[in-house]
């Protein structure tokens, strides 16, 4: 029963929370209600059995417990009596627990958490916490911040939602496109958190990737915009390779060494279709172009078949839309694949000379690899050491150490 409730929590707690926030009009109250509901489930279901509609039971119980809480506090603060009355009377039974309302509530939650009235950091922290159920530790790692900072951001964000009366609603059509941008940004951050942990043992955290993809699908349903298609495509294409990113021992496997027969063809086809649609609209943005690059990789039957020229052209387009040193680095690697390592060295050294990427381990890893291919042993060793100084993720660390060992041992 414990296991059943645990898996129910993973599957349903966010939906239940989203609905409770709508019913109770308050994040903290909803969270309390959610916790109480699951505690009640653990106490009652072993005897009474799992209800026919667990989600509806949890929502109903959570709401009841929360109103009960307010009533208890009303003994010390009579102004809460009115609130308890309103919540109890006005809303009646939970409407249509199986239907659209639940997904609408999740969208309400997403758009509220991503309201432009909240700071960018607050939006991301709040969405990751409330919509995706990441812990403050996980969020802190993703943003290179400390857990207390993240916790404070979330507290302040909820306070602002309360004090400024940010409504729990999906934006009106006129506001929708601009409100969408911040939502996409948050979804992509969630995916990245799941795709490659920023430190620690796991290369991928599968649940978060599925969560991000699910969120993107939800948003796409509401707003079939090219960039939403582009973002969904990008995530599907990356996710299609997740089984081959690491081997049975948890070691990193490079793209060129991945077993392409293990790639999820259906997901690749879906991603491919979405990219084509998005590009055809001519209103696409950076996510779509990144997806197009991923699609070119996914379309190559073997690594040797990769159309590097097309990839470089797409990186050129991407840099015009979104100038960034990391993108420039990726472009340099693509150039090197087509024109040879020396070309890659020139480009990356130019980036480092201009002061960019100096703390980014992948820049040095790329340099090391180019030197290695050119049999420039000393330079390769030096750059692997630099990369190791900066790397955070364990599988990446082990990979770099292995490369370094091979060079040192072949003296």
């Amino acid at each position: 029963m414990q296991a059943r409730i645990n898996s129910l929590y993973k599957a349903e707690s966010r939906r239940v929370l989203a609905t409770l926030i709508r019913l109770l009009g308050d994040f903290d109250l909803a969270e309390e209600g959610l916790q109480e509901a699951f505690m009640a489930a653990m106490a009652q279901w072993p005897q009474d059995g799992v209800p026919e509609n667990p989600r509806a039971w949890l929502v109903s119980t959570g709401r009841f417990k929360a109103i009960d809480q307010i009533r208890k506090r009303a003994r010390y603060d009579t102004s809460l009596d009115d609130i308890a009355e309103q919540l109890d009377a006005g809303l009646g039974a939970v409407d249509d627990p199986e239907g659209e309302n639940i997904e609408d509530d999740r969208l309400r939650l997403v758009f509220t958490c991503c309201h432009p009235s909240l700071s960018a950091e607050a939006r991301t922290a709040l969405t990751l916490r409330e919509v995706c159920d990441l812990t403050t530790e996980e969020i802190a790692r993703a943003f290179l911040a400390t857990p207390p900072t993240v916790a404070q951001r979330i507290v302040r964000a909820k306070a602002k939602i309360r004090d400024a009366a940010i409504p729990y609603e999906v934006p009106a059509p006129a506001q929708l496109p601009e409100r969408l941008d911040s939502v996409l940004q948050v979804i992509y951050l969630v995916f990245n958190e799941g795709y490659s942990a920023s430190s620690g043992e796991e290369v991928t955290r599968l649940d978060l990737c599925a969560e991000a993809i699910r969120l993107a699908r939800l948003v796409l349903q509401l707003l079939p915009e090219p960039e939403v298609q582009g973002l969904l495509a990008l995530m599907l294409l990356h996710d299609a390779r997740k089984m081959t990113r690491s081997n049975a021992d948890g070691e990193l496997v490079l793209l060129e060494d991945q077993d392409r027969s293990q790639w999820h063809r259906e997901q690749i086809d879906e991603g491919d279709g979405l990219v084509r649609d998005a590009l055809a609209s001519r209103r696409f943005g950076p996510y779509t172009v990144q997806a197009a690059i991923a699609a070119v990789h996914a379309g190559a039957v073997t690594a040797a078949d990769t159309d590097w020229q097309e990839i470089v052209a797409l990186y050129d387009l991407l840099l015009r839309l979104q100038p960034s040193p990391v993108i420039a680095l990726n472009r340099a690697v693509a150039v090197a694949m087509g024109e040879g390592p020396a070309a890659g060295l020139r480009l990356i050294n130019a980036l480092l000379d201009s002061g960019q990427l100096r703390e980014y381990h992948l820049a040095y890893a790329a340099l090391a690899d180019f030197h290695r291919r050119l049999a420039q042993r000393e330079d390769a060793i030096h750059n692997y050491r630099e990369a190791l100084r900066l790397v955070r993720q364990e599988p990446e660390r082990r990979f770099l150490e292995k490369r370094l060992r091979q060079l040192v041992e072949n003296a």
Partner: protein
Amino acid sequence: MKYLALVYYDEAIIDAMSKTEWDALNAECYHCVQSLKSSGHFVDGAPLHPVATGTTVRVRDGKAAVTDGPFAETREQLAGFYMLEARDLNEALSLAAKIPPARLGSVEVRPVRELPVPAEAE
């Protein structure tokens, strides 16, 4: 819920206007107020004389210091205010977006709070 919409713009923009343009802007503001009144969103509001007509008072250690001009030099200056009644922030923001100087400067929208009545005053 009450929100204060503080209207700011760079007075240099206004100074560069012709009388016709200035009159037109004022007429727009007049109609905006009328519209807010008829929709029940207008609680109070007023345009202000330019920032140079302002005087700032600070009391420190029981002494009042009076200085000319605004409390601080800012890129945009306070030009007026609206006290709005709105259902929630989104409604307040869409009302604020209709304030004519919003396209020239910035409108800060802030929720109004109730001053708690101190125990001795009850």
